[in-house]
């Protein structure tokens, strides 16, 4: 929608800044981000109108994800290692996967509502506004309570970093933030691609859940646990293995079950960029294929 047209006068947002889409790609990106932040701020203000409710739901989100780790703790109550990995190592996988996914869920977690918007026809409203649909969808009903998941993952990650017996070289230290950031971007691409899929299959948002929520659950456990075909699938097909598995194997000095060369541990930034490009192509194709239900 935006990006090709030169808007002379933009609407002044609630915060006072003037939003003017421009023709170049970078300007379009900046405009999209600006619009995203504007909508996010709006939802933040509305959330903060009910502070007690926010605190409760944020705690609920924290507790909901904490149960995943409690399950792992209960498992380690019966065993010393799981698939040859210690609790500290599993906690590292859990922490990196949960923080990366949590950041994505926080920033673009509403994308999966696209199918229901197509069904009830409210997507048309978004198409009429001079703001990129992607930015509107991503910021729709921005829920700060989802920060509960990030916090929970960060606590487990902090614990694992404190107790892990790893030879911390500068490179290994740098790997940790790189995993979290690139992992979040890869998950974000999966969210966008999944939402684009819903332009065609409107009530199949559960498929997206399998890759997003299912993906983060998968990455919480050592790759050696799973069938090789499954590991191949999340390495080459839907490259979730680059979120944390492959770089984590380097940090933990572990063998990769597929026997890939060591440099793949450093590929997440490349994979993240490629994923975003592909998701962008899918999104635009989906948007073009969109037919309003007319209801």
């Amino acid at each position, binding site marked *: 929608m935006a990006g090709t047209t030169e808007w002379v006068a933009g609407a002044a947002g609630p915060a006072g800044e003037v939003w003017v889409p421009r023709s170049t790609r970078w300007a379009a990106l900046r405009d999209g981000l600006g619009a995203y932040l504007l909508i996010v701020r709006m939802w933040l203000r509305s959330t903060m109108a009910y502070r007690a409710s926010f605190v409760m739901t944020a705690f*609920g989100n924290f507790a*909901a994800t904490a149960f995943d780790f409690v399950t792992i703790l*209960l*498992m380690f109550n019966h065993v010393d290692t*799981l698939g040859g990995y210690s609790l500290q190592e599993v906690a590292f996988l859990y922490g990196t996967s949960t923080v990366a996914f949590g950041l994505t869920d926080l920033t673009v977690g509403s994308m999966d509502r696209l199918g229901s918007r197509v069904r009830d026809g409210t997507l048309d409203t978004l198409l009429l506004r001079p703001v990129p649909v992607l930015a509107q969808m991503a910021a729709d009903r921005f829920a700060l309570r989802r920060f509960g998941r990030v916090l929970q993952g960060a606590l487990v990650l902090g614990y694992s970093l404190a107790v892990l017996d790893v030879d911390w070289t500068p490179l290994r230290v740098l790997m940790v933030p790189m995993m979290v950031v690139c992992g979040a971007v890869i998950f974000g691409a999966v969210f966008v691609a999944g939402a684009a899929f819903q332009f065609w299959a409107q009530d*199949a948002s*559960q498929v997206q*859940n399998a890759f997003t929520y299912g993906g983060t659950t998968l990455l919480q456990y050592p790759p050696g646990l*799973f069938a090789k075909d499954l590991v191949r699938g999340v390495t080459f097909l839907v490259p979730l293995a680059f979120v944390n598995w492959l770089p984590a194997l380097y940090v933990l000095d572990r063998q990769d079950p597929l026997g890939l060369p060591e440099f793949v541990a450093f590929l997440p930034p490349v994979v993240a960029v490629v994923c975003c490009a592909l998701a962008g192509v899918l999104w635009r194709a989906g948007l073009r294929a969109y037919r309003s239900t007319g209801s």
Partner: protein
Amino acid sequence: MRLYWLVARGGFRRYATYRMATVAGVFTNTVFGFIITYTYIALWHERPRLGGYDLSQAITFVWLGQALLMTCEMMGGGFADELIERIRTGNIAVDLYRPADLQLWWLAGDLGRAAFHLIGRGVAPMVLGSLAFELALPVNPLTWLAFLLSVALGVVVSFAIRYLVALSAFWLLDGAGAAQIAGLAGMFFSGMLLPLTLFPGLLGEVSRALPWASMLQIPADVFLGKSTGWELVRAYAFQAGWAAALLAAGRALQGVATRRVVVQGG
């Protein structure tokens, strides 16, 4: 009685309308089934016969969990969200004037929904799971029947809990918090995350005595042939007891709510 039968059929058909959503749901249940199965294989590889289950029984437990997740609505939801919304908007006043019992009406609809979810979201993942892994499927047809009865009782317990949660909206107006807490408890105490026999000490004893055990742990034990003879009677008594107690609590709360609470104007 005919009215409630029609409501139940309506509940069934309502969910049967969303075919694509059902297929997508089966896909998700299957993916999660695979992921959890592999973690259980690793766990039971270290500790065979953990929690009293051998490996194939443990894996069967996983797939039963995926099959019953929607049937017993362990995460909460289903009719509860709708009832909460009707209470919040005041539409509940219309329901109260209907010549039908409010609790039975919603129960009938929920049983219809559960029947659909058992067939639509339960059978397919189970079949897919049994193709990929060696599941401990009962050979005796009576065990299957006993299992179905246990699932039915589990659905009633699940309904009774969600009904209480929904009625809390009469006082809280926003039922989201209560629903979320109930959903968390359902996931944790039903055995969905890990069989309750693996929970240690007091936590294990308490969790096995709570009503949520009726939704997965008990039906799964019936399915796996752990509960036979008097054990089976005890299992049914446990489920029926919780169902009766929670339904009675719901009825009492409904009475208080309709007598004392001013319905929100629409």
